[in-house]
């Protein structure tokens, strides 16, 4: 009963117990994510430090390409505030099916399972959270992180060969650490850029940040490399830049170059995606998917031998 003891002395004598059960619940949440991810062979994130470079387009087309290779594919639209994957895959209006085991994601083209915030919103509705918006800097980041955590933990993916996560733009600040912490055995990241110097500079920073966090960068996709004429099919440069040099400097493979193809893009805008792998642009995505697949197999083989 001596009040002269300082707090440090008092605490040294005490045994901490989590009677509010907060740590217990957070630990349970993490375990649930781990359990959900068990059935998924490879988890790949598609990221870029820059917005508007075509991350969603790349993710969607890689998913289609993997599916054409006979892989079982899931696609997680992590862009909470600007989810567009359902529209690109013609899945607007579909919804998650609640079951006692969790939420079952709807199936889109080529049996790709898709989870997206868009399924919880009404048409054209923005994402608006309850809570004091004047104090939103206090809690908004935490809310978004836990939304992503719920999308990982509460989704009944079943057995998948690939789960692709389409990260939001500017994902350097908070999402990669969260994903590293949440997704066990993250296979790696595909980084999307455009040949512009501005994009390259920003993308390099996000690559460095991801690598610091231990995320394996599988390679770089250069999007909007050229402009493909919708009439004659001829390809001409769209930007001046040098993604080759960036990849060489960073020691990363350039997985492929995708032209800006208006007709191709339009089909995704309309929700009628091109599924045919013979389409010239789809074929380029197919090549990238094969490279990623080989890369991950190669790593797998090495893992077994080392």
């Amino acid at each position, binding site marked *: *009963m001596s*009040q002269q*003891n300082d*707090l440090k002395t*008092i*605490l040294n004598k*005490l045994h*901490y*117990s989590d*009677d*509010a*059960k*907060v740590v*217990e*619940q*957070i630990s349970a*949440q993490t375990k649930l994510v781990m359990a959900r991810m068990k059935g998924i062979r490879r988890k790949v994130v598609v990221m870029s430090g820059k917005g508007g470079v075509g991350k969603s387009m790349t993710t969607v087309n890689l998913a289609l390409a993997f599916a054409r290779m006979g892989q079982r594919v899931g696609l997680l639209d992590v862009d909470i505030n600007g989810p*567009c994957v359902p*529209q690109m895959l013609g899945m*607007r*209006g*579909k919804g*998650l099916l*609640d*079951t006692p085991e*969790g*939420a079952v994601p709807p199936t889109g083209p080529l049996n790709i399972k898709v989870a997206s*915030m868009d*399924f*919880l*919103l*009404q*048409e*054209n*509705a*923005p994402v*608006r*959270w*309850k*809570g*004091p918006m004047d*104090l939103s800097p*206090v*809690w908004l980041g*935490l*809310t978004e992180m*836990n*939304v992503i955590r*719920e*999308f990982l933990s*509460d*989704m009944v993916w079943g057995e998948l060969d690939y789960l692709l996560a389409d990260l939001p733009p500017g994902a350097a600040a908070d999402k990669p650490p969260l994903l590293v912490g949440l997704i066990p055995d993250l296979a790696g990241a595909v980084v999307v850029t455009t040949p512009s110097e501005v994009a390259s500079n920003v993308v390099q920073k996000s690559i460095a940040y991801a690598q610091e966090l231990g995320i394996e960068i599988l390679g770089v996709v250069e999007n909007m490399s050229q*402009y493909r004429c*919708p009439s004659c099919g001829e390809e001409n440069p769209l930007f001046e830049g040098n993604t080759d040099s960036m990849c060489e400097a960073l020691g990363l493979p350039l997985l492929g170059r995708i032209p*800006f193809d*208006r007709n191709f*893009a*339009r089909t995704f*805008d*309309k929700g009628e995606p091109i599924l045919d792998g013979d389409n010239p642009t789809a074929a380029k995505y197919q090549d990238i998917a094969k490279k990623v697949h080989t890369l991950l197999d190669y790593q797998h083989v090495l893992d077994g031998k080392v």
Partner: protein
Amino acid sequence: MKFVCLKCETYMTFEKVEKPAEGSLGVFFECPSCQSRFSMVTNPGETQMVSSLGVQLGGRTEAPKPLEMTRGGLEDNVSAGMGQMAAYLNEKIQSGQPAAAPATPVASAVPASATAPGTSSEGGGCPFSAMVAQMGLGSTGATGTSAPPAGTQLLWTPDAQEKLAKLPSFVQPMVKSSVETFARKSGFTTVTLQVMDDSKNASTEGIKWTPEAQQRLDNIPDFIRPMARREIERLVKERGQSEITAEVMEEAKEKFMKFM
């Protein structure tokens, strides 16, 4: 978070959580030795932080439902989705006014065949027209083909559908949403021309404008009208009323004297 009873040199034990006010939590602790009790009261930001963790203080009595925090944390989609912009577009476009100031001012009604700049549905123009079209809410004339993920599918009569189809394609989704929200709130299962007209005079807050009040609102200059509408609706909502009459407008006049 733990509290220490300095007198007894022991951790206080978590007792319970109460909600003393909206956006606030009262978390009660008790010293197991001297039975002293106190309550920590959180401010709205702190309350939201706890909520954002997806946990329940003191533990759960039942397993969380799928996406419980996400779904529970979202504002009501109907009011959030429609918003002022949708209602504004609905009112303006249906009334035959341009949705936004075009490069060349147009005073009359939007022609039936009019399309927004850069939204041409055929190729051959600017190579970035598809991107521009996407910026215009991504609509490519999806008139009446998609339904909100939640809620019932509303029927559109052919003439209502035709009227919607005559609007510029890039505003159709928002106008459609606004009309359907109004229809659902009013209990309509079919969208008719009359429902479309009525929706122009109904706000997203479920507040109705009498024709006379609407006329007075229309007298307010374009650029200030949306703000005036919001303010007047807020005034009425604060009073717990649901209709804006000429009398209400008269009362609000002082506030907007220079515009009315």
